[in-house]
């Protein structure tokens, strides 16, 4: 038999393109550590970072402020930006495959509405930040659980029922957010709630990183591991079952992992919209529809995208722009362009 290898049959993305995709987030990550109103020499940033590795010891020639800015402010922020971008993009791709629909976002099952309500409630009652985050996270999970249970029919959860239940749950929690806003005093709490909902990665400190990053990375690893099954699932539930896929199990795993990712994101950084739609669509244009390649691509491109957007948020004006505004301002027209270009197809 002649050389029957997939790479000889399918059109493959060149290693060069993959190389750029993989290197880019690391490069942007580094850039965002020295860029800012307090400019730090890239060489110094490198030394500060290397100094944190045991066994390496550069003499400190820089101001202590530089170290504080890099390690306590910019580093956690950039890590979070990368994780949020990768996580939301990956979740979006997984949901779009599962729902067989390019317009689906990671928030379709109500996680953002639920988490928004939790956060708004916490802010209304003047709880400390960590409690607001936990309550937001809890309500995000609760909302999706509610959607899932509502969609559950005779031991199955049909895709259509999931979407419709998600709409109902989202609408309900959005109404609850409005209620909380209405009750909030407009001097102090209403702006706090409004700003929180617009989103910011700036609140993330070094101490927040581990408890949020670890579950996110685990969830992403699970999604990554089942990425080939997403291909089969995207052929439709009936087909997938005929091919021996336990669709209920795969759907549940996808829902749990994406909910974990998006609920953590919303509870820490507010609502960051459009990423989950734009990035997977864009990645399909580069690497094709096969989830085997698409999922890794969304990780790198999504991370790069949010790092760039977050840098814009803190750099383009004197006061920081909420990230949710920028992702929508950039995301909506980009998505419109991608839709036009792919003629509503799947790239």
């Amino acid at each position, binding site marked *: 038999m002649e050389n029957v290898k*997939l790479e000889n*049959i399918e059109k493959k993305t060149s290693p060069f393109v993959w190389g750029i995709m993989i290197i880019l987030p690391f490069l942007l990550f580094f850039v965002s550590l020295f860029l800012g109103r307090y400019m730090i020499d890239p060489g110094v940033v490198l030394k500060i970072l290397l100094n944190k590795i045991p066994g390496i010891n550069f003499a400190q020639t820089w101001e202590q402020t530089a170290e504080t800015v890099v390690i306590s402010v910019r580093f956690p922020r950039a890590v979070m930006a990368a994780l949020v971008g990768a996580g939301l993009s990956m979740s979006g791709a997984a949901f779009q495959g599962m729902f067989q629909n390019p317009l689906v976002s990671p928030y379709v099952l109500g996680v953002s509405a639920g988490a928004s309500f939790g956060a708004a409630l916490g802010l209304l009652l003047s709880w400390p930040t960590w409690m607001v985050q936990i309550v937001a996270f809890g309500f995000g999970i609760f909302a999706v659980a509610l959607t899932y249970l509502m969609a559950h029919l005779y031991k199955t959860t049909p895709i259509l029922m999931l979407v419709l239940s998600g709409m109902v749950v989202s609408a309900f929690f959005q109404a609850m957010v409005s209620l909380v806003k209405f009750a909030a005093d407009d001097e102090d709490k209403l702006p706090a709630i409004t700003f929180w909902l617009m989103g910011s990665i700036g609140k993330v400190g070094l101490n927040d990183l581990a408890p949020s990053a670890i579950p996110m990375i685990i969830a992403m690893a699970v999604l990554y591991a089942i990425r*080939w099954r997403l*291909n089969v699932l995207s052929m439709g539930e009936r087909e997938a079952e005929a091919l021996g896929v*336990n669709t209920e199990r795969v759907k549940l795993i996808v829902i749990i992992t994406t909910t974990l990712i998006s609920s953590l994101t919303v509870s820490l950084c507010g609502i960051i919209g459009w990423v989950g739609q734009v990035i997977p669509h864009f990645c399909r244009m580069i690497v094709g529809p096969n989830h085997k390649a698409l999922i890794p691509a969304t990780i790198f491109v999504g991370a790069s995208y949010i790092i760039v957007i977050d840098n814009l948020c803190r750099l383009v004006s004197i006061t920081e722009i909420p990230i949710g505004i920028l992702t929508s301002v950039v995301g909506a027209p980009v998505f419109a362009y991608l839709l036009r270009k792919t003629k509503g197809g799947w*790239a």
Partner: protein
Amino acid sequence: MSDEIMVKVENATFSYGKKTVWENLNLEVKRGECLSLLGPNGCGKTTLLNCISGSNPLTAGNIKLLGKEVADYEIGEKAKRLGYVFQEHSAPFPYSSIEVVRMGRTPHLGFFGSPDEKDTELAYSIMEDLGIAHLAGESYTQISGGERQLVLIARTLCQQPDIVLFDEPTSHLDFKNQALVLRNIKKLSESGMTIIMTSHFPNHVWHVGDRVAMMGYDGIIADGKVDEVMTEENLSKTYGVPVRIFEGKSGDKRTRFCDPDLD
């Protein structure tokens, strides 16, 4: 053909809510048999296939695949035994055709697994057998309906099942593609595969298959060898219109075909 019973339907009844589709239906298919199911729209042919595949649970009675109750199969285990080529199909993503064929390997993979080179080789050789190797790299959404049907057949063969169900494999296809699909089903049957297919074209039964079962609105009307069951009487009864059978000859080729009598 051996005497091993691959599919056994016993006293099966299926209803949607209060509406009974068929009652007390009995059917046995032996290894290597190729059974065509004929019948008018809405008589429950596809429903029967869905029950055999286990996706529609019976209201009463039972269905066994290789001696084991269909409901007792673990889903992956069942997919190694039984393949199902569906009739209508939406194609959401433009995967390459060989990737679609490779999906047939799913029941043979671990939960976190994906097909390897051996699977790709198997998929490719199956596509060669079906004469569609040239489509391997083509996007599944860009090929014609007949080609897509052949890709789906290839995918089902990639499962390496013992039994294949076809739900109207030639509907929506033009003349050439009908011939192509039928020829491949015939080849498959000759290689010893156990096949059950539904069809809206009684004429195809003479081309493919050794056995035919005719279904009316009250279950099976006639079941047996093609030459014995394909009579004007049975066909007329099944479809509820007078049907004539004609014999024809072209060169040294003799054939039979039927046609409804419109007068």
